[in-house]
């Protein structure tokens, strides 16, 4: 297995990048609706899907909140907002990361990719997206953007995973519909066509 994509490394990456393990009581503080605190710069520039965006970010604001509620990128879903489900997975410098557990300020100098950034300008789906369509991987679809981003991250670091490696690499994403087998079929198909 490619060591870059283990669940342990995934989680460690999240923690190292400035985890804000939110609970319901501080969710709303993380939504960037507070007043400036101290000397932390609020207007920051972040690179999202290849575009540098200037956005007003509170010190404790999570990347998921910034993406969804400031930049309108609602493809990133919040299933738990506490680092358990993976529905909010995005890529930060190619590493799958829980956007609910990453402070936006911590990614100022990094490249963020969301599910909206995968499709080409002419509407061609990313190989992972295309494979997920062909395998009918999603069921309810709420976890799908996170599954897509984890799969993209996995295949960038390990373009030809075994099915077991794919299973390990995707293990940070929950699917309550239980579509794991179909997602793995999609990952393996994407590896074939990618």
């Amino acid at each position, binding site marked *: 297995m490619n060591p870059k994509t283990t669940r342990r490394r995934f989680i460690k990456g999240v923690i190292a990048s400035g985890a804000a393990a939110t*609970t*319901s009581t501080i*969710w*709303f*503080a993380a*939504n960037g*609706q*507070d007043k400036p605190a101290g000397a932390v710069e609020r207007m920051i520039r972040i690179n999202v899907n290849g575009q540098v965006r200037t956005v007003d970010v509170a010190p404790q604001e999570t990347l998921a909140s910034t993406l969804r509620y400031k930049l309108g*990128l*609602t*493809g*990133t*879903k*919040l*299933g*738990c*907002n*506490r680092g*358990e*489900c993976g*529905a909010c997975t995005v890529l930060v410098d190619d590493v799958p990361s829980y956007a609910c557990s990453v402070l936006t300020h911590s990614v100022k100098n990094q490249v963020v990719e*969301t*599910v*909206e950034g*995968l*499709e080409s300008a002419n509407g061609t*789906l990313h190989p*992972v*997206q295309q494979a*997920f*369509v062909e*395998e*009918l*991987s*999603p*069921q*309810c*679809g*709420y*976890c*799908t*953007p996170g599954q*897509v981003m984890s799969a993209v991250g996995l295949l960038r670091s390990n373009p030809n995973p075994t*099915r*077991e490696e794919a*299973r*390990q690499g*995707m*293990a940070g*994403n*929950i*699917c*309550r*519909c*239980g*579509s*794991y*087998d*179909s997602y*793995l079929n999609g990952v393996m198909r994407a590896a074939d066509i990618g």
Partner: protein
Amino acid sequence: MAYMHIGKDFVPQDVPGKVTGRIKYSEDYARDGMVYARLLTSPVPHGRVVDIDASEALAMDGVIGILTADDVYPDGEPQSPGLKVLTNEPTLIGEPILAIAAVDEKTAEDAMMKISLTIERLPFALDPLDSLVEGGPDAYNGGNTFVFRQGFASEKWSSDQVAAFRSGSEPTAEAQQSWEYGDLAAGFAASDFVYETNFSTAGYPHMSMEPRSAMSYWENGKCYLHGTSQSLTAVAEGLAGIVGVPLEDFVFVNEATGGGFGQRARAGSIPILAVPAKLSQKINRPVMMRVTREEEFTIGGARQGLQGWIKVGFKADGAMAAMDMYCVSDNGGKGGGGDANSAAGGVSALYQTEAMRFRNTSIGTNTGHRGAQRGPGENQIMAVLAPIMDKAAEDLGLDRLEIRKLNAAQNGDVSGPRSQPFTSAYMPEALEMGAAQFDWETKRSRSRQTDGSKVRGLGIGQGYHNAGRSGMDGLIRMLPNGRLQIHNGVGNLGTYSYASTSRAAAEVLKMDWANCDVITGRTDRHLPISSPQDGSNSIFTNTRTCYGAAQDMLGKMKEIAAADLGGDVADYDIDGSRVFQMADTSVGMTYAEVATRGLELGGKYTGEAELPEELNVVTALAVERLAGSALMGVYHDPRHNNNPPGFTVTFMEIELDKETGKFDILDLVTIAECGTVVHPQGLANQLRGGAVWGIGLSAYERHLYDPQNGLPASSGYWQSKIPTYLDTPENIGTGWVDLPDPENPVGARGIGEPSMGAVSAALNAAISDALDGHLFNAAPVTADMIINHVAGISENSVPLAQNNFRG
């Protein structure tokens, strides 16, 4: 029969939106001027609100308004169990008491902290048996149970009766509910193997990925509600009633739903959606109410837990001669469901029990809102019974597969207290197919083989659910450009049945799918009443309605052609783009021409006359609004005959480590017996997803409460232990019998519920097999239970307890 669409894979129209993130769930919408609502929820498991002082909160900058139970229920709250929009009489920790709206969520949250809530704490119960004991706490105001048409009541047993039940004896108290058929005493007398035990199955939360956030606004007298549901039209009238707006002035928007599993099927299970609607009405601003994972846990529902006693007898040949079942159902804090009754009905159907008695008493606890969850009742009891079937086979010297085939439901069989016949049943065929695909003959010899601390276990499981609603309506339109629009109100939960059932209409009209549109997603697109996507009903029910509407349209198309081109209706046929005379195919009209002509003719051709009298009010409104817009096919589906079952079979091999109590699933094959297959990829997804759910039921999922304070301890994914990639096998084998059912025009029946039950049963049987046939008589069987058994020590929790810290 060769079909054009039925049995073929296709790409449902919403799938690209799901992989690109474009499809919108309710929380993804925004509206100019939108404000944000936060919920103040109950801090106690059972209480009564004495006073709410929100003056300081309402005086804050940015706070717009407040909604309380008094606003929602000016004449007093309904005195019945069931979720309320808001309440002053909470019976759950986390139950919403009020909502406050502000310009942003931070302000709303800050305002919440300024509210002074005075609440009287009342006794609470976490275990139905604790409440059943004389003097025990009651979950509700007015008792611990609710009797239909009578109201709240108190059900009490003596402490000796409860103690005897806990220790494994048959309950002696009179049950609230009972039914019986056959000669039970004679059945047991004729039995060569009789097994008697108490058992428990845990309830646990649905944990849909999408919390039930909602957004609402009012415009020109209409209420627009963006919400999350298992149906568009079956909930519309109920939701409109809860909001307090006429159906014709209510628009429900729900393009996609992030999971439901039974708990979003009815308006009564999602009344919280009315909060933003009523707040918006009160403050005249669009309102977004985001629901947190913790809030979703409380109001999002849970499976009923069952504590019971069973006695089952088998004849020497393996036939299940008698079954006596007594359940105490955990109804949770907001009323419950019918799990116990469904469990008993499932036993009767699946094992063709010759004589049976069922008794049940339902008792409330202050633990979550109980209700339907995927295969309610059947899936729990099959997990308990599968190892007992193996025990019977072993004792009687029979093969485990053969005893199941002997008792399996077949065509002509009946089930339940009313001896209702199946519409069709091919369980022996499913068992044979599963055995062949799994290679049971070879693998059976690996049973109980050891390798150090690891041991192999094999299990066979069966699942059942009676699936098939009728009385719904179909509505389709042919536009003047020849496109077919199939209106479907089923809801989009991820089974894709909104699309696959619509293909029955395309099938009748022989149309290319590329020329068809499924109209769905919001009720102002004028949708007929459809079965909710629940209870495995939508495939059976909505193929009937779509097929019927298409037949209506086909008749009208031929009438138009015959009137314009001469001859009789019977002289005409179709080819997917033209209506033509069979004797001279050059004489005909294109679909576009027929649709255009239908528009000119109006009347019955465009929904303005001669409509089915029985149309549901929802459909009638849709037809009225579409009348005159296109050639229309309208159909009301009458009641069908008999019971359309969904059956499944699972074969499983596990390797269990006796040192850790953990196991790996080495092979899993699950077979569907659900009539004609409509959508193979969708069916495979249901089988795989059901398998994951079955693994969760039998090995992992929990409902944990702190006994001191009644605090939920499993409100998140981690604590509730829903299965992950690593808890489930790398591959799940699937297959299907694919024999048509006579009560459905394309031969189809549903499968979503039993796809779980067979796997839960097979897993419990495999665990038992690996432990030399030890019976836990419980679900889940967790690692600590296994370790304790292997170590020869008793369980560290009360065997029958519900909602405890087991596992």
